[in-house]
């Protein structure tokens, strides 16, 4: 992040644009006790909230893959990324802001039903439109399973709002770069 020598401000933490950008970070970490706490503390001590967090075993044994979303001052986030990379148990960190990756998230949504077939039909149409599957059809409620990008899920949830959403659970985003990436190389090496 070297700046122009003629610039007049040198403060790294100056207020800047990009406050509303959601940054998606991919991490490859050693699968060790405490690694999640160490990562969470890097965000917490700077007053940053983790928007979503998904952890799973990586392709190579002994490593885990994490996807974290967060937003805030981009300079602070850059510092957070450097501090994450510095952790002994963190093998790699990538911020996907510049090159949007493939992205997927699952949501289960419980909505109220039961007032006639019109309503059921309407729900069915929403499900069709958003590729959702009705995984439970009860007397008073139905549960839909949604899969898609964060934006797609957001659109589906807006369409479902009139159905009285009673319960919602989301997995948090998982992302992957298209083609060959640093993360692919890393895992093949280890």
């Amino acid at each position, binding site marked *: *992040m*070297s*700046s122009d*020598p003629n610039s*007049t*401000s*040198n*403060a*790294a*933490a*100056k207020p800047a644009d990009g406050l509303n950008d959601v940054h998606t970070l991919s991490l490859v*970490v*050693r699968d060790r*006790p*405490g690694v999640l*706490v*160490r990562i969470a*503390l890097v965000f917490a*001590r700077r007053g940053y909230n983790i928007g979503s967090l998904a952890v799973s075993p990586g392709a190579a044994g002994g490593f885990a893959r994490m996807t974290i979303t967060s937003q805030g001052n981009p*300079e602070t986030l*850059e*510092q957070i990324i*450097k*501090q994450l*990379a*510095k*952790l*002994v*148990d*963190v*093998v*790699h960190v990538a911020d996907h802001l510049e090159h949007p990756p493939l992205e997927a998230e699952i949501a289960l949504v419980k909505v109220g039903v039961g007032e006639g077939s019109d309503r059921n039909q309407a729900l069915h149409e929403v499900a069709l439109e958003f590729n959702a599957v009705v995984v439970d059809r009860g007397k008073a409620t139905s549960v839909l399973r949604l899969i898609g990008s964060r934006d797609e899920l957001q659109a589906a949830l807006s369409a479902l709002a009139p159905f009285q959403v009673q319960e919602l659970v989301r997995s948090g985003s998982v992302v992957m770069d298209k083609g060959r990436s640093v993360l692919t190389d*890393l895992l093949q090496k*280890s």
Partner: protein
Amino acid sequence: MKASVDTGAQRLIRFLEHAGVEYIFGLSGGAAMPIFDALVDSRIKLILTRHEQGATHMADGYARATGKPGVVLVTSGPGATNTVTGLLTALMDSVPVLVLTGQTPTFNLGKDAFQEADVTGITYPVVKHSYLITSAQELPRVVKEAWHVLTTGRPGPVLVDLPKDVTQGPCDAPEPETIDIPGYRIPSLPDTEALDRAATALGQAKRPLLYVGHGAVISGAGEAIAALSDKLQAPVVNTLLGKGAVDETGPLHLGMLGMHGTAYANKAVVACDLIMSIGGRWDDRITGKVDAFCTDAVRLHVDIDAAEFDKTVTSHIQLLGDARRTVEALLPRVRPGDTGAWLAQCQAWREQFPLTFESPDDDHLRAQHVLSRLNALTEGKALMTTDVGQHQMWAAQFCLTRANRMWLSSGGAGTMGYGFPAAIGAQFARPDTPVWAIVGDGGYQMTLCELATACVHKLPVKVLIINNNYLGMVRQWQELFFENRLSGVDLEGNPDFVKLAEAYGAKALRISHPSEIDDVLSEAIAYADGPCVVEASVVKEDNVFPMIPAGAAVSEMLIERPTEKLEKPSGST
């Protein structure tokens, strides 16, 4: 358990012996008993301290005085939590301290067992890395990895939590041959392109300034920096922790920069057209108001830790690597520019704004006077440690450091109570070097129980107490910024420090009048049969100047006591 199989504790101690550990500083307790037992048969010398904080600062002082890791051994629960301040101190100043903590047996973990504390949990934010070992067979691998992390890259404290069944249980796991930490990378040297850009910028500068931090001390970059300064004819300033990397008495050295730095160092910071940090991290004590710091200068940053780049101040050229190797690589690349006018200007400032203090008279003993005499009488051959506060700043100003690892002070954490135990650790490390702990009456009382430790080992460590019966730095701020509404700073009830030292069996002397300074200090210097405590009862209400109020720009430095009321500082503490 077969008698022929070593315990985890025995394997641990054997590893430390092979690694060259001479001393372990610690305090025993139930959960650590197997490790203390293994020490009975070891050539490693156990130094029993009176408090675990003292043990941690001793290991820190040992490490800073030698460059080798300091090792601490304590028990679980409160024994472990008492090391937290020492861990923070070591983390903030990049010191390799290994803290070994006993722990309740694995089958009791999480059950609120006696003296159980979640020690790895409590210490996550204050360690470079840490481990909780849950099986004896894991111990050799973990300890080898911990030692590697401790002794490479940017130094910092490492903690290993050792449940009692792990240290007591049998361990026949083979010594691991390799270390596998794929996430741990150690930078060595910047790329050629960055070095060339830096060399060009240095050669083009009309008013270059080399700003030397603790990284230069740690990597032993001083000689290379002195050569670079000489080749470029560029002046040098150092941080509080950078003292000694480059001889502060040299003609191109302008002393300490920052909040209580010399006026001429800070004037050079304001006027330079290029500033190169060598192992400094642009701390808020250095920059003052960041938005106004060296805005028109080309800023270069040498650091082994990439996370330091652009953290507080952005830099135009970033050199990732070991400070010594980086400066050595720069040396043949640089071509000096013409800095004659710049050096003349710096010299003019040095003459116009020298460090001063009110002339001593018989009624007023001044800390600055005592410290400048100590500086003269020790002839630059004493290793000095300090506590935190006014005495620390006066010592930094008036005791010039001429060689590497001769000045130990808690900079980042600002830990009161650091100075005396750190001096003990340094004296163990370097028995032939005179060691002086310069402390205030406030900080000294936080760890003075270690007088017992120093007396038991007849360490010839000296303690100079600058006693003004106040927490003086806070009192100074209250006077300058809070209309002298004193709150929580009066140390009434201080003990008689001479009698107290004598009660421990230490030699103790007092300086009450300026005329006694040289005689008493000389007597202390000559005394070699054990610790010697010198109390200097100084004027109560002296202030440290120059001073850049927190959050103000460097250019707003106060060279002497202000005549008008000051605004409350808006910046850092």
